């Protein structure tokens, strides 16, 4: 899932400051699961914003809504009248959601209330960790199911840098050395020999650098003319 974190309340209040009537929109998908932007956060953040305005002797009208996924327009369109009624929209979606919201309602200012962090998993309640960098070309089959690109601070492809101590990374001692994990896993699987194969440099043109990427499935894609027809 996409893991995100709420912006500090100060920042939220500052963004809201110029407005009297706003819409706060949550997303019931990934960011709900990482406890950042679901229905409850919408309601908590809205009541905090009202309280803040109240303590200044002023008031603010906040409409609350939560959609299934902010990254699909079909879920956003039903919000049209609420968006219309608001001076600005505050999205508790990830970066994708905020952008699609802005694209869908080009006449309204749309503000992000989350900082989108990474693709990851829930390690334990309250702790989420990164597991995938979206490099575009998966090599997990060769590394015992542990990704050296996402989990090695240096993104090394052919073994550890030699700088780890007590199993921890020299860049961040809170992080396990990914290559040690890979070694141990392959040992468990009895496949240590496979490490002898040298991995060629990756084709980074498929990764999250440079031009924006897209995936096209020609068999699924509906030509735009047909939609209009």
């Amino acid at each position, binding site marked *: 899932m996409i893991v995100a974190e709420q912006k500090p*309340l*100060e920042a939220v209040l500052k963004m809201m400051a110029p407005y009297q009537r706003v819409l706060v929109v949550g997303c019931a998908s990934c960011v*709900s*699961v990482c406890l950042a932007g679901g229905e409850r956060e919408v309601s908590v953040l809205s009541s905090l914003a009202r*309280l803040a305005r109240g*303590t200044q002797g002023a008031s603010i009208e906040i409409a609350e809504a*939560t959609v299934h996924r902010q990254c699909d327009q079909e879920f956003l369109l039903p919000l049209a009248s609420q968006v219309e009624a608001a001076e600005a929209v505050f999205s508790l979606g990830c970066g994708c959601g905020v952008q699609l919201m802005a694209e869908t309602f080009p006449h309204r200012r749309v503000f992000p209330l989350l900082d989108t962090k990474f693709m990851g998993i829930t390690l*334990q309640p309250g702790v989420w960790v990164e597991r995938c960098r979206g490099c575009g070309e998966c090599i997990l089959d060769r590394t015992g199911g542990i990704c050296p690109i996402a989990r090695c601070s240096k993104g090394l492809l052919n073994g550890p840098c030699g700088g780890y101590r007590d199993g921890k990374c020299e860049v961040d001692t809170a992080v396990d050395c990914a290559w040690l994990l890979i070694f141990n896993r392959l040992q468990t699987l009895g496949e240590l020999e496979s490490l002898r194969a040298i991995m060629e440099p990756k084709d980074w043109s498929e990764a999250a650098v440079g031009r924006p990427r897209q995936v096209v499935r020609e068999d699924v894609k509906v030509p735009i003319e047909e939609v209009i027809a």
Partner: protein
Amino acid sequence: MNGYGTALAVCTCGGTLCGRLDVERIVAAPGFASALVIHDLCLPAGSARVASWLRETAADSLVVAACGVPAAVQAVVEVSRAAGVAEHRTSLVDLREGCAWVHTQADQATAKALRMVASAAAGVRESTPPVPDVEVRPSGRVLVVGTGPGSLAAAARLKDLGCEAVLISGTLERFEGQAGEFKARIRTDQGVECHAVGAVIAAGDAPARMPAVQAGQRVAFLLEGDPWPSVTESTLSAALHLARDCGCRVLVLFRDMGVAGRGLEELYREARGSGVTFVRMEEGSLRIVEAGGEWVVTLEVPGLGSVTETVDVLVSGATDALQGTRGLAEVLGVAPRKGGWAPRERALLEPVATERNGVFLIGSARGPYTTDQAVRQGEAAAMAALSVAAPGVIAVSARASVDVERCAFCLTCLRVCPHQAVTTALGQTMRVLPAACQGCGVCAAACPAGAIQITESPNRRLLAEMDALMNGPPLGGRPTVVFACANSAVPALQALGRLRLSYPAQVLVVPVPCLGRLEAVHCVRPLAAGARRVLLCGCYDRSCEHLVGPATARRVVERASALAGTLGLDPGAIHVASLAPVDWHKLGQILGVSCDDGDRNGGEASKVTAHATA
């Protein structure tokens, strides 16, 4: 068909509350369809009068302002039933112990009473009908794990009581479901067996103890570590047998002789009288050297100097029983979870039960107990298991429910539930198991989608009650809001009332099932509405029945304080306090009253004791 509006009944407790409160003003509280003053709600005549009045008013909801004694609670249930008002549409306000008896100024007490009544009315209006009862149909089968004396005693007692004990030989691999309808998967030498059982009683295995010793040999037993009764029992039995019946020379080295079990002191005395030598080791004075198949044990004994003994066999006592059954406890879902949230000791405070309904631990699965204790626990567990596993139909009311439309499947509830009451399966929605749920509300507080609500106080109801409490006639100062845990703070508050110890009328109480039910926003809201302080009063970490309440509350307070600071409110105004239900003094200290009202309090209590022992 009932009509509309909320009715208000105020009980004056035989008129004794009239001087302390302005009852006329309270019955004239705005927003009620009709109101009645009575004097004896908890007596049959009084409750009958309320019932007939309520039928005439045709109201669809009811607020009763009376007291918190069980008879009054019972009366409200009966009255609403008799008049056809749904139970969730009624609310009882503790006007006596919670207001009239504890506030000295009638005008302030009346103002607070008006707020309490308005709060109850707001809550009743926001209440939701309970989810229909769920039927659980136990088959009368109870899984008994272990081969020790405790499990045999449990199995025998279960049979006597009309249940079937399923004794297994193999390893319990998976255990899921809820009390009354668990599913257990067991791996045996032959393969995998599955059993549907209503409860599980897990005991340790029988201790295999007697060391390999030949007649006439010299034996030393070494008892280090904690003086566990189970170790004393097995060691002393072996030592006595070897010394008395096998002609062995037996030495027992110990620090503390653990005799906290029935018959152990007698066993110790008998062993001493039968030729077993007991020598107490003091810290650091023991030396053991192995030499040619023999052991040379040297000990410094204070006052006697150095003592040396050569023995053929050296038996080291103490096995870690709790560690030994850790895996089993984990499969049963009663061990500390990842992150160490569940303090295991809490389970040890119960005689046989655990935090998971229908799972009972006895004997060495529970602690270092003797055979006698294990057998007693086994018989106790059999009776306890009967209540969830006896054949028949049990109607269980759901204390929490999931709105699947809103659920984001984030699994937070499943992870935070201290009672293993939340479940899901592929292709299924999240489900709260009613026979496992204990209504603490930890899940409701954690749910990011607001999809879980506890029936007793859904979030909207709690917020409505809090808001109504915070807005009302002036109390003579800024309020202090106390969130009171039902297991500790509520009984302690009631005791303060019974002692007529006065505290300021600005103290407004919001009862909650457990502090774990609260979110940061619940703490900030009253501050923003003008409260001076917000206190979360609940159990201690180790006494919390829901295990995580105080720890959750501390995290909530940290977050709430930070939020309060951002909002320009006092970040130091929110606190957590731990107390026991019997420690009303501590609550008094927190609320700023001295509870040592010497004579009245002490005098009465000692009279009870005198009476009891007369």
